[in-house]
């Protein structure tokens, strides 16, 4: 069964990798005017424009361009940025670690803190429980961009304990790298933590209502083990799928957060490319985003299969 799950995921992933770039091509083709216009300006002569079109390969039919691109992509060549001339893959290689630092950091914080809070509070129906319920809603409601601005104002500008913007590479200074990620991760993870805490709490409450929990207690198993070994293990199965969704949500949020904190990752590069119509870069980033999402989904599927013995053992 696990094999089936993975096989299915592979099929979807391959489909995505084919479709998303194709989609970018189609959308690009719908633009009035094309890249050559933007590069040369309308005052260019027809000869100049034809030459540039030919040079950029823009005079081919769409499907030919797509296939050419696909062929190059499979060799690792994603073309060059229309504006800097740099190879897109080079840019992607420098943006990816930044985004991954942010995304993985945010997801880790979300999961660890959220699950801990949710599990610990599962027993309490009184004040703590209601607090968590309220906070979880707050987490969704507070817009992450607004939170980011407030965080910067409070921690970086007023109290000056954390850097306001910028990214330090881990190879330069591990500590600075960590510090530069604290505020962005908080801004990104805030909504997630509260959602995961609530989900965990809800799932735990469900699980704690179940027969086998009662039996474990009845036969003398320590309460700590009941909650953190048995209940949490059972509750984590649906939570794992939530984590997958969270990551994808974080991806969307990272675009805004990277912009605010000036982290040179895929998100800020994407916005730059979008506003300057730099299509090769947009295409490259779309593919990378898709790859990240695919990887996360595979990991989630595997984790789900591993956690759930009914899937694992068949």
């Amino acid at each position, binding site marked *: 069964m696990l094999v089936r799950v993975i096989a299915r995921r592979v099929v979807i992933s391959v489909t995505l990798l084919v479709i998303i770039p194709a989609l970018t091509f189609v959308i690009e083709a719908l633009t009035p005017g094309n890249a050559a216009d933007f590069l040369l300006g309308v005052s260019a002569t027809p000869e100049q424009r034809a030459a540039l079109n030919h040079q950029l390969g823009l005079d081919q039919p769409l499907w030919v361009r797509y296939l050419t691109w696909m062929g190059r992509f499979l060799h690792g060549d994603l073309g060059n940025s229309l504006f800097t001339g740099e190879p897109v893959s080079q840019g992607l290689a420098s943006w990816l670690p930044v985004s991954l630092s942010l995304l993985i950091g945010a997801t880790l914080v979300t999961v660890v803190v959220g699950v801990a809070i949710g599990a610990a509070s599962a027993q309490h129906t009184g004040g703590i429980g209601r607090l968590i319920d309220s906070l979880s809603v707050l987490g969704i409601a507070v817009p992450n961009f607004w939170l980011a601005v407030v965080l*910067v104002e409070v921690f970086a500008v007023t109290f000056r304990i954390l850097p306001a913007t910028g990214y330090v590479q881990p190879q330069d200074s591990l500590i600075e790298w960590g510090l530069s990620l604290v505020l962005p991760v908080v801004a990104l993870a805030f909504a997630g933590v509260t959602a995961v805490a609530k989900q965990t709490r809800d799932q735990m409450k469900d699980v704690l209502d179940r027969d086998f929990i009662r039996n474990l207690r009845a036969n003398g198993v320590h309460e700590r083990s009941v909650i953190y070994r048995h209940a949490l293990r059972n509750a984590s199965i649906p939570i794992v799928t939530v984590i997958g969704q969270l990551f994808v949500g974080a991806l969307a949020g990272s675009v805004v957060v990277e912009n605010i904190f000036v982290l040179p990752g895929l998100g800020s590069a994407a916005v730059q490319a979008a506003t300057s119509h730099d299509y090769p870069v947009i295409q490259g980033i779309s593919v990378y985003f898709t790859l990240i999402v695919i990887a996360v989904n595979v990991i989630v599927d595997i984790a789900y299969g591993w956690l759930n013995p009914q899937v694992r053992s068949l």
Partner: protein
Amino acid sequence: MCFRSLARLSTLSALAAVVVLTLSACGGSTAPSSGKAVPGDTLTIASSTPPISLNPALNGNGVPLMWFAALAYEPLIVRNPDNTTSPGLATSWKYSDGNKTFTLELRPGVKFSDGSDLTAEAVVKFIQYYQKSGTFAFNLASLASVTATGPLEVTFHLSSPDPLYPYYLDEEGAVGNIPSEAATENPAEMATATFGAGPYMLDTAATVPNSSYVYTANPTFFDRAHVHWKKIIIKIIADDNAALAALRSGQIQAALGDATDADAAKAAGLNVTSEVGGMTGVVIADRDGKIVPALKDLRVRQALNYAIDRVGLTRAVYRSYGSPTMQYKPAGTDGYVAAMDSAYPYNVTKAKQLLAEAGYPNGFTIQLIVQPGVPGGTLLAQAMSQEWEQIGVHAPLTAPATFSDYVAKVLGGGYGVTTYVYDYQPFIWELNELFSPTGVYNFLGAKTPALDALRAQINSSDLGSPAANALEQQAMTYAVQNALSVPVSAANFIVFSAKNIGGVAFTPSFPIPDPTQWYLTA
């Protein structure tokens, strides 16, 4: 609000790149540190934008873009803050033949950072390359040919008189930032590394593109005394608040500042250096009324001038770091006419009256396009648009996100009015750009015959001389009285710097803060 930087330029744009200004105040600057210079270790400064390209021919100009080129590439002609010039890679230069021939002598014994020599050939090759591919190649429109007339002598032959070459070839004009001949022949390399003869060189290993650019001292720079630092790092910090926070925490030592942050910067113990950087306002390209016939009428254009509360608007958009203006150059610079400062006092009634007289009692509609890079940005445009609403002139805004979008739209011919920043250069530069039938910002080709004669005279004159200045003042009077455009504010540049950084100085005649001049004080 403050628009920090120029968006990406298209490589062969037909319009001039705009000098990037940020806001600063006339009456609020603290004296820059002028202690004795001592050798410094690392200077870290912030730029709101990464360079368009490290290739000096493809980068933009203005601050902070020019910093990326200025650190590594010594220009032919060095312009000082007070608008005097000093020898750079060229030791002397002169015009002849009625401003149709420009000759310069090069400094002997200069080596580029890749070890090759500075020769006339290297200069010629670069100028030719610039003519083909450079961002501001249109500045060289009058260049018929450039030749090496000696091993260290370069001669420019112009097809029509152009007195502005000492400006094109200075550190800000961008044409004069000469790379080695080998680099000019392989321009792709210049996108990621530097090959100049300037005080610093790019450390490609330590540089993270779009994040931080590291420059180390160039051991072969011909003027070692002026290399004040072992290392200069330019960090990219796009957000004003973030830059200020970085300044406060000591992460960086200098950055261009924003008017709204100036008080906070002072409170934090930073130096605030502020001078008039340029005039902002709106340029009426449609003076011939091709799109909006009303604009042909002098009374209409004057009404547009009367309808703006320059005092209130300046205060709102530029805070105390700007002053109202009605003309195209600030006080103390060439072309400025004191009398013109009272040409259009704020008077809504009069504006409405003029409109009615011209036959537009109910106003009309104009398409106002916002140029990226103009200080005040969309705030300026929104404010002016709202002022004109009061007299019935409806001015919806179009704000393209990038400069290339702006170019495409403007050349498409649908816009007659654009926000604009009037440069610091000699007034003739503006006159050509705005009022020559082929001027880059005269995108609807409006004709102003009265100015043509004046311009021709100035083009052939000895720029900077009293005679030339008188001519420019005549031109200024004409331009203002005929309401050819709507200048609104003299906006300031502001630089925030740490107290121990000296040499942060600039003037309205050359408001270009240049980090190569900054040093550590004892």
